[in-house]
């Protein structure tokens, strides 16, 4: 069964460093998402991406964040200068369409720890 994959599973970085989190969405999906979940808190929407551009973003997704689909398979989230409060699980998700009933499939997540 196709699935969303994410690498690495755990990333440890120093405050101020740049990190790139990678995702491979399901191959025939067209809409891509990043969410984050700070430990013990709810899942928060960061950004949605369609047709090679951002379609929606939250207030969390500031200038320190960027997304890219550099080739036909990968979808990346870059944090330019990490802060302690960026420590969280980051989940990538994808779906075939934006219509109601189109299931959203989540990857296993990348645990980002900023020291």
């Amino acid at each position, binding site marked *: 069964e196709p699935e*969303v994959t994410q690498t690495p599973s755990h990333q440890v970085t120093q405050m101020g460093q740049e990190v790139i989190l990678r995702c491979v969405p399901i191959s025939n999906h067209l*809409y891509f*998402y990043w*969410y984050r979940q700070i430990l013990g808190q*709810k*899942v*928060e*929407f960061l950004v*949605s991406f*369609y047709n090679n551009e951002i*379609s*929606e973003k*939250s207030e969390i997704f500031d200038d320190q964040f960027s997304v890219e689909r550099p080739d036909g398979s990968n979808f990346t989230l870059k944090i330019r200068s990490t802060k302690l409060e960026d420590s969280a699980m980051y*989940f990538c*998700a994808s779906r075939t369409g*934006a219509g*109601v*009933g189109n*299931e*959203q*499939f*989540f*990857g*296993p*997540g990348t*645990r980002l720890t900023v020291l």
Partner: protein
Amino acid sequence: TQLLEQSPQFLSIQEGENLTVYCNSSSVFSSLQWYRQEPGEGPVLLVTVVTGGEVKKLKRLTFQFGDARKDSSLHITAAQTGDTGLYLCAGATSGTYKYIFGTGTRLKVLA
């Protein structure tokens, strides 16, 4: 700001008992999803409901979408230890590409 409140926040029950988890909002959603999340893993989709008043069943789990599409419930019959986990509801409004997640209900089923 759209908010989805889930209740109860925590629930600990004995195997074989029934339970209901609620997901409430003041916003109208075009669709609502329920997920279960295990520690250290991503949310796994259980069901999507799109029509007001809709009821869907998945084995011992019954999902209902409110008539006004502002709330939903998840009922588990004869809970099993394997039902233990974090249950999340997530709603999408029309014209948006994102799902807003609820605050979660952490369920523990004791043997």
